[in-house]
Structure formats: structure tokens, C-alpha cells
């Protein structure tokens, strides 16, 4: 039963990922669709980013006393200036560690 649940979950995940790729054709993407799709990275990645920064371990909003906010803001500033992922990670993690590790 457990294996079946795992396998079905896997099949569903694969089907979701495969769905649009499978149907893709070489014809030109209509402009309205292109207008929606260009917001996919911004929208979905923002959805994955915000809770990681602003929610604490018990899933509640933490604005004051939240070192992750300062770490993320420093990382954002550095990424705008350098456009480098690795420098962004180093900055964000260093700020976080400076504020959390004793």
C-alpha cells in the first residue's frame, strides 16, 4: 500500500511536469500566452521565497527579530550589484550566520 502511494505520487508529479512539454509544437506561441508565461518565474519563485524568509519554524509571521529578513535584503542588494549567484549566497548566509551563530 505504501509503495503504491509512493508510485502514484511519482506518476502524478511526472505527468504534471510532462504535460505541457509533451504537447509543445513548433508553431509560434500566441502573444496572450507568452504574456502569462513570462511571469511564471517571478510569480512562482516569489511564492517559494517569501514564506522561507518571513515565516518562522512554527509557520507564523515573524517581522521583528527575524535575521532572515536582513540576510535576504543584503543578498538582494548584492545580487543587483554583482549578478552573481555564488556571491549572493555567500553574502546572505554570512549575514544570517553573523546574526544567529554565537
Amino acid at each position, binding site marked *: 500500500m*505504501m509503495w*503504491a*502511494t*509512493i*508510485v*502514484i*505520487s*511519482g506518476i502524478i*508529479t*511526472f505527468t*504534471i*511536469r*510532462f504535460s*505541457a*512539454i*509533451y*504537447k*509543445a*509544437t*513548433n508553431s509560434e*506561441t500566441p502573444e496572450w*500566452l507568452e*504574456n*502569462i508565461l*513570462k*511571469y*511564471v*518565474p*517571478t*510569480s*512562482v*519563485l*516569489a*511564492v*517559494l*521565497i*517569501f*514564506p*522561507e*524568509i*518571513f*515565516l518562522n519554524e512554527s*509557520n507564523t*509571521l515573524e517581522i521583528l527579530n527575524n535575521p532572515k529578513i536582513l*540576510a*535576504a535584503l543584503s*543578498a*538582494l542588494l548584492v*545580487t*543587483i550589484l554583482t*549578478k*552573481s*549567484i555564488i556571491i*549572493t*549566497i555567500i553574502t*546572505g*548566509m554570512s549575514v544570517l*550566520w553573523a546574526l*544567529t*551563530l554565537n
Partner: protein
Amino acid sequence: MVTNIRNSSKNKEFFSGVSAVLPILIGVIPFGLIFGILGLEAGFTANQTFFMSSIIFAGASQVAFVKLVSSGTVPFITIISVGIINLRHFLYSASIAKYLAHLTTPWKIILAYLLTDEAYAVSIKRLQEEEVNTAFYHYHLLGSGITLWLTWQISTFLGIVLGQIIPEELNLGFAIPLVFLSIIAPEIIKYKSHAICALGAGILAILLNNLPLNLWIIFSSIFGLIIGVLLDKTLGKSQ
């Protein structure tokens, strides 16, 4: 000669995919370790935990899976929950589909299987770069995908066998949102519509975070798309 150029373009894209994904591994490895530990703690066998990483191959939904099952959730609801968490991958799939349209079905199957948040994120970044060869873009996705896949399997395995080897206080998992931030930053700085789209989607994600079945992910993503498209129309070329 022509074949050589084609091969070198393939290699170039493949290895640029591999190297683009290396920084993210700082966050992926601890995530895989944690998943391995969580799986055993939740009462799954080592085999079930290990193979979940290749059968499902989607970190957040795997964590949700083991948590749901261990709290007594019925299989049907667990499966639905995994599906909803991973619905966002449909958007990824749609967003890169046109670059993969010319490929054979086996290629499409492999790339779809490898299409994670991280692989998608770095490959989108690649598409924005000038020297990208979009005809061989699929090799970039293959390179990042295989690297992430191997890392995920190995780190799950290490989590199962070794348990907690990296101190939790280091918060290495925070590297993943930092990478995503780095990837969306250029558009956000450049266009108001992208900035407001990110803010709207992100704030809604926080507000809806306690929705059942992790519905917040897909609801907030779609909300962000709507904001983006509406602003695109109103701000248009003025921005």
C-alpha cells in the same frame, strides 16, 4: 567539422548547466539529508525513503508526503496533496515547452522527469544570457537536471545512513530561496509589473500558508500571474 561544432555547443550547454547548478547544491544537500532523516523518523523503511527520492523526485512534496503519512493521513489525501504542491511544475513545463518542442519523446520524458524548481530556475536564467544557444538549451537543462538528481539521491542516502551530519543551526537550506531571489531580481528591478507581481504572490503565499493540502502554492502563483498580466496591459510600454 559541422558535427564538431554541434558537439561543442552541446557540451558547452551541458557543462554550463552543471556549473550553474553547483552553488545551489549548498542548499540542496542539507535538504536531501533532512529528507532522509525525516523519512526514517516518520516510520518509513530505508528503501521506501531512498526510492521516494527517485520515484517522486520533488523535495518539498516528499517532505509533505512523509509528514502526512506519519500523522495518519489516508493515501488518497496524501496523493492529492503531492499533486497540488507540484502543480506549479505545470507552469514551468508550459514556460519552457517551446524550447523543447523539436525534441523526440524520450528526450521530453527525461527532461520532464528532471524538471525541478532548481533546474527550472537556473535554466530560465540561462535563457536570459546572451551567449546561450537556444537550439541546444535542452543540454543545459539535462546538465543541471542530472547534477541535481545525483545530488538528491546521494544526499537522501547519506541522510538515511548517517543521520544529522550538518548542524541545523547553519540553516544551509536558506541558500535555496537566496538563489531564487538572485534569479528573479533582474526582472524585478527592471519592470514594475514584475516587482508588484512578486510582492503580491509572495505576500499571498504568507497569508494563505495554513491552507489545507498546501493549496497556497498554486493559489498564490496563479494570483501572481494575474497581477503580472493585468499590470503588463495597463503599464504596457510605459514602464
